[in-house]
Structures are given as C-alpha cells and as structure tokens.
C-alpha cells in the first residue's frame, strides 16, 4: 500500500516508522526545514520537504497513486484542506485526518472528512473511563446510525440496584447488553438482577441518555 503522511510531527513521524516496518511504501511531507532535516536523518528518502497544502508538492509526492493519505499537521485548517483535495481532486479513497482542537471536529464533519481523529477527545474519553464522572462513560457513538453505547455505574440505593433487568422500566430504544461485576462480565436476560456497584453497558438511541442514566444514579442529597 502507498501511504502519504502529511506532517512530520511526533504523530506523523511515529506513524511513518510503524507503516514502514509493516512494509508499506511511505512518503512523509514536512514544511519546516529544521524538522525535515531531523526526521530525514532516519527516514531518508521517505520524507520530502515542502508545504503539504501546495498542490504541486502533493503531486510531486505522487498523491494520484496514494492508497491512503494521512493529514496530521498541527493546523486543523491545513488538515481539512489536504484531506479535501486528496479525496475530491485526486480521488484518494482512504483519508484519515487529525483534528487538533476537538471543537473543530464539526468542520471536518461538515466538509465530509472522516474519519477525523482527535487525540484530545480520545484522551478525554480515557480520562472519563479511568475517572468516571457522574458514573457515565461514552464507549462508542455511532453518529450516522444514531446509536450510542454507554457504560454506567449502578449507585447503591438507586432505583436500579436490586432490580431485575425487565423491571428496570427502561424506555423503548434502550437495551442492556452486559453487566460487569467482580472483574467479570455477562450478557443478562430479563430476570438478571442488577446490583449496586455493577457497571452496566447499554446501547441506546441518541437522546435517551439522561432518562436512562437517572435510573442508575443515587438519590441526590442536598
């Protein structure tokens, strides 16, 4: 596979190294002369110097035959533009873009650039997973399918603690898919009883989150 990586920052450089180890043909493009010289010591002919949002630079690197373009510069507007021309002008089928500021994800979406990967967002999710606030973690959002998978902690004394799944009174469009307890997990049926301290995974229609999670949370003490 021929992969073009635009931006030789930490992300671009490490990605290039991994891809080369997996025997892919890789060209990295870097616009800073200093950075180019540092990375060139290791990557040699696999890196080219130039502004990756200049069309001639992309063409010189052979974007027309690229199977995959990865736009990982530090500027979101550059990553958006590179992804857009890669796909729409040069017909590259697979494009992956880095989104530096998670607030800019909406622009990537608006212009049809997917997948856009936001490290900040990913790390935020990991933090949520390790330090769950309000006992709720988003595991997966399927935006186009309008579904999400969440993990919620069952508070002692909540409506759900000690209740069978079929008695939870969950709204239509939500389903318990597994219960995690004592380091293990199982797929419940309607008669399985949820206990305080369990972590429950649910799949739901987008928009039901607060209605569903309220059943697992404890009484709010003033």
């Amino acid at each position: 596979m021929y992969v073009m990586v635009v931006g030789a920052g930490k992300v671009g450089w490490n990605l290039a190294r991994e891809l080369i180890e997996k025997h892919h043909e890789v060209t990295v493009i870097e616009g800073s002369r200093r950075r180019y010289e540092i990375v060139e010591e290791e990557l040699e002919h696999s890196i080219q110097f130039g502004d990756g949002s200049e069309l001639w630079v992309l063409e010189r690197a052979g974007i027309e035959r690229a199977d995959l373009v990865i736009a990982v510069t530090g500027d979101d507007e550059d990553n958006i533009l590179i992804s857009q021309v890669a796909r729409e002008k040069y017909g590259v089928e697979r494009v992956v873009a880095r989104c530096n500021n998670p607030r800019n994800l909406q622009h990537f979406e608006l212009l049809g650039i997917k997948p856009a990967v936001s490290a900040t967002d990913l790390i935020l999710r990991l933090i949520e997973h390790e330090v769950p606030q309000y006992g709720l973690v988003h595991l997966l959002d399927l935006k186009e399918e309008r579904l999400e998978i969440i993990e919620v902690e069952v508070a002692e004394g909540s409506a759900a603690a000690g209740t069978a799944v079929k008695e939870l009174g969950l709204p239509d469009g939500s389903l318990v898919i597994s219960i995690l307890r004592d380091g293990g997990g199982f797929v419940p049926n309607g008669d399985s009883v949820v206990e305080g301290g369990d972590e429950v995974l649910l799949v739901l229609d987008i928009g039901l989150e607060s209605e569903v999670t309220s059943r697992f949370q404890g009484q709010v003490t003033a």
Partner: protein
Amino acid sequence: MFVLIVGCGRVGSAIAKSMLAERNEVSVLDENPEAIALLNRGQEQTWEDMGGSFTVGTALEIDALLAAGIEGADAFVASTDGDNTNLVIAQIAQRRFEVDRVVVRVLDPARARWYAQQGLQTVCPTQTAIELLEAAVRGQIRFEGVSG
C-alpha cells in the same frame, strides 16, 4: 446589506471601510484586537462610532463567527492571511450558514483555481498580478502609477 469580513489586514480593512461608506452594515472579525487600528486609520471618527462593529476571535471558532453575526450576513469575505483558513471558513459560511454571497481571497493560484471549479467565488491577487504584469511587459497595457 449586512457584510461580514473575516481577517482585518490591508485587504479586509479596506473593503470594510468602503462597504461602511456605502451605508452597508459591516462587521469585522479578527483574532488580533489591535487590528481595529487599521479600521480607524485615516478616519475622523472611530470605526465603532461610525456604526461598524468589530469582534475579536478566531475565524474557525463557530462562537466567534456567531458573535460577529454570521447568521444574518448577506455577504461574507474571507480575507485572513491564511489560504487554508480562508478556504475552510468560506465553505462553512456557504454550507453551514448558507450565506448568499461568499468571496474568498486565495494567494496560491493552484488552490484558487481548483476551489473556484468547486463553486467558490475566489479572488487570487497573485493571478491578477501575473496577468497585469504580463500584459504590461508585452506592451498591451500601459499604466501610470499603481495598477491592479
């Protein structure tokens, strides 16, 4: 009409002043708070006293565009010093906010040409300079002072 200009350098500030003088409603957005000096320069009253508005914010931030009034804009000018920034915000104005008239300044002729083909109204000062200079070299045009 209501004109929103993003990027208050030489180009943006000059357009802003002309549009305001022609009794349009004009809002300018720039990330540098000092850029308002360009709007005040050579004027008897301050930009805001004349009825212009000025917002400090980053072009890519939706909140900044909203604060500058993009939802009510009839015309949108992307004139920051970054080609890619201009091309992205122009598409946001066109596709997300459905502004009727969007114009974008792009210095690189290659990018300008391709985005023009995609339906953006693009002005490329570099291309204009090339054409004028070529015509002047061939003797097809002759001008006194500054042209373009």
